[in-house]
């Protein structure tokens, strides 16, 4: 059996990523400990190559490997976003691993393997590829979460992530097997046809729908499948947390939308009700529990749960409406996740590098008086938090604006109103940190106070995240046109 050349060319970005990952795993034991940075630059070079390759795949829609993989603008949108956030994570890790004295080269290999899984997820046209991509992403992330092998908290996070992740993929796989039983195939288009011809009344279909929703719910970290998120985000090394919060969520949304809109679009009336409930629960719990957090990583974890809730509004709109309204709803989800990526990555980068005596400053108390000690760092944090709260003129506002507009146009104005109320509540806990940074004096009792450990790589990451937050806030048009170009391809 030979594989056609055009099939291999179509998945060239994935091949480059996997090839580089293998190369890194081979080079890692050979390289001296002082030269591990080279691996990070190798990773970045591979990402740059992929960025170029995927940019040329923005038009058309081709199916390769007997319809297992689809290459279209929708997949390319997510891939481009994933390259950018992975690149920024690698740069952040360069600084963070040094500060943590973690001299491990295989870290970059795992990042790339995880990225390869995410890329397979977003361009999967068959539940088989989507499942395999999800597993490759998750297995790499379990390992990365526990990479601080001397730190019991990191390992605890890894174990908790592993147990719930494996549990959820078991549920997901059972749902897939039931869909296979209904349609006789795991291909999304065949499943869609089967639903169209057989009708939507089959009890196994409802069961499969629920199981898939639970499986993806864990990956997206939406209530009530969010239990692992705060613990894992807190315990994992912060650069890994940033990667999980941003890249894994983006890829999960990419695959989730493709499965539910393209494969299960025929039963959108059923799943839109389900996701309305999940969305409301996520908004409520994420925002309310974030208020009482004293650890900033846990607070950002609940904030990321809440943001998944906002993005779900667009999904619900897409489920209840057809045609152009649905596409706008989906496009607003794409835009929202892109915007969320920049502000969350920026916030986690600061959290990881704001350190005291070689330790991360994780409690919000330690941010007291930061504006005096580190005016620039405090300003960056201010921008990211303001954006997370959704206050204009930042990108966070634009993301929420498009989501709420989609909800209003889709006849779900009440949902937009509820979300606005929760957004107002969220401003409380984001701006509380701003208040602590700018208005509170640090405790006089302790001599050493947390400072930002700067490095060129970190400065670059922060500058990129800030540029993303500010520029997308002022000029969202180009990103919006990319999103509206990509979203109608589902359906």
């Amino acid at each position: 059996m030979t594989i056609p050349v055009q099939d291999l060319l179509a998945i060239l970005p994935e091949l480059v990523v996997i090839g580089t990952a293998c190369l890194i795993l081979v080079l890692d034991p050979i390289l001296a400990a002082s030269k591990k940075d080279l691996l990070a630059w190798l990773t970045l070079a591979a990402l740059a190559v992929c960025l170029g390759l995927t940019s040329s795949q923005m038009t058309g829609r081709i199916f390769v490997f007997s319809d297992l993989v689809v290459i279209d603008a929708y997949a390319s949108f997510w891939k481009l976003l994933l390259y950018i956030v992975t690149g920024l994570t690698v740069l952040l890790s360069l600084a963070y691993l040094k500060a943590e004295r973690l001299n491990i080269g295989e870290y970059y290999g795992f990042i790339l393997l995880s990225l390869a899984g995410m890329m397979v997820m977003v361009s999967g046209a068959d539940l088989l590829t989507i499942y395999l991509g999800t597993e490759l992403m998750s297995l790499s992330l379990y390992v990365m979460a526990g990479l601080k092998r001397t730190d019991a908290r990191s390992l605890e996070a890894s174990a908790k992530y592993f147990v719930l992740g494996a549990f959820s993929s078991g549920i997901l796989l059972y749902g897939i097997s039931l869909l296979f039983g209904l349609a006789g195939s795991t291909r999304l288009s065949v499943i869609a046809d089967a639903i169209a011809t057989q009708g939507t009344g089959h009890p196994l279909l409802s069961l499969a729908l629920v199981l898939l929703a639970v499986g993806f719910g864990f990956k997206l970290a939406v209530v009530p499948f969010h239990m692992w998120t705060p613990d894992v985000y807190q315990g994992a090394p912060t650069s890994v947390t940033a990667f999980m919060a941003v890249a894994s969520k983006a890829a999960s949304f990419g695959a989730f939308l493709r499965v539910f809109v393209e494969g299960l679009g025929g039963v959108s009336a059923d799943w839109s009700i389900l996701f309305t409930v999940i969305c409301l629960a996520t908004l409520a719990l994420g925002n309310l529990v974030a208020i009482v957090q004293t650890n900033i990583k846990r607070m950002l974890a609940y904030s990321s749960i809440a943001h998944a809730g906002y993005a779900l509004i667009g999904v619900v709109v897409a489920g209840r409406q057809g045609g152009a309204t649905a596409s706008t709803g989906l496009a607003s989800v794409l835009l929202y996740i892109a915007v969320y990526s920049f502000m969350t990555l920026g916030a986690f980068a600061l959290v990881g590098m704001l350190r005291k005596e070689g330790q991360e400053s994780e409690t919000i108390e330690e941010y007291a008086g930061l504006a005096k000690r580190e005016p620039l760092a405090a300003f960056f944090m201010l921008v990211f938090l303001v954006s997370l709260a959704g206050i204009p003129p930042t990108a966070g506002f634009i993301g929420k604006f498009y989501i709420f507009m989609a909800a209003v146009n889709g006849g779900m104005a009440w949902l937009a109103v509820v979300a606005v109320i929760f957004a107002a509540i969220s401003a409380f806990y984001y701006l509380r940190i701003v208040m602590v940074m700018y208005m509170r004096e640090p405790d006089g009792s302790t001599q050493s106070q947390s400072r930002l450990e700067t490095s060129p790589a970190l400065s670059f990451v922060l500058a990129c995240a800030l540029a993303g937050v500010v520029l997308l806030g002022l000029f969202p048009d180009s990103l919006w046109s990319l999103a509206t170009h990509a979203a109608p391809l589902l359906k």
Partner: protein
Amino acid sequence: MTIGNTMAVPLSYYLILSAFVFLTGVVGVLIRRNLIVILLSVELMLNATNINFVAFSEYFHQVAGQVFVFFALTVAAAEVAVGLAIIIALHRAQSTIYVDELNLLKR
């Protein structure tokens, strides 16, 4: 096994068996506290899925389902490898593999 074109055992038997195995796995994950037993329960869930795939594959005469089983088995093996490695590392750090004793996080 099949004899000619008919299934000797009706499809529903396989589905009931797989549902039972799957539920055993789910309940195991939810009520057991030992990480190794939880890992075993997850394996039960995955194997229940494999029963489904093979049964449906036989029913539809579609080989795709059996191909899926190969992939699922491979993933399950990888999952066990990673899971056991994490459990060993955790045991070295905390001297416990009981999930209710893992309470360093949450403050």
